[in-house]
């Protein structure tokens, strides 16, 4: 069955430190992959997405993600975290023939001052 897994429920980092949020997928073929961020009272905002081609994808707010087929992973990274990055992050995937996004269970990022 198709699935997306985010193994970390919570992550705490200090402001200015680097960040990596993990995402693994299980699909029959390479899916389209997305990272969304959800702040309290806000809708899900797209950070970046991967179709094909270059495996390092740049997104908004200084985020990037790297697709690794051999590890079935699509981890999100940021070199220096700001306090405003505290939020919940969701990885999602779908096949090109589908319109349904399948989401992971999310990772809540806490930022220490």
């Amino acid at each position, binding site marked *: 069955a198709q699935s*997306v897994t985010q193994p970390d429920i919570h992550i705490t980092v200090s402001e200015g430190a680097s960040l990596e949020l993990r995402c693994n997928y299980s699909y029959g073929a390479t899916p*389209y992959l*997305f990272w*969304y961020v959800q702040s309290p*009272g*806000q*809708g*899900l*905002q*797209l950070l970046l*997405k991967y*179709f094909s081609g270059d495996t390092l994808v740049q997104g908004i707010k200084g985020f990037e993600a790297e697709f690794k087929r051999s590890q079935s992973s699509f981890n999100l990274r940021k070199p220096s975290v700001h306090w405003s990055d505290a939020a919940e992050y*969701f990885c*999602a995937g779908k096949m*090109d*023939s*589908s*319109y*349904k*996004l*399948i*989401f*992971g*269970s*999310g990772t809540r990022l806490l930022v220490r001052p």
Partner: protein
Amino acid sequence: GAGVSQTPSNKVTEKGKYVELRCDPISGHTALYWYRQSLGQGPEFLIYFQGTGAADDSGLPNDRFFAVRPEGSVSTLKIQRTERGDSAVYLCASSLNSGREGETQYFGPGTRLLVL
């Protein structure tokens, strides 16, 4: 331009009551989706509209749930005989065309439903 809007932002109801949740998609978007997000979980697909028709309602949990999009724009999710287990955030999203391939889905802020 305006994003996806949802009303109400919060809804408290009693078990057994009927509720309607409204979604206004981005103007010109033909595809519309409803997802449900339970506490501590990621959103789960409920239903997909292409224009006025429900192209896929396979995610609706049971026949108490129903959704319409009569003019191909605004959509209403209807829940009959609400149960406490229906408590969740209901998210609406829209996309420009079919939603296939890498097309981005734009999400609204959600309606938080609490069934007492």
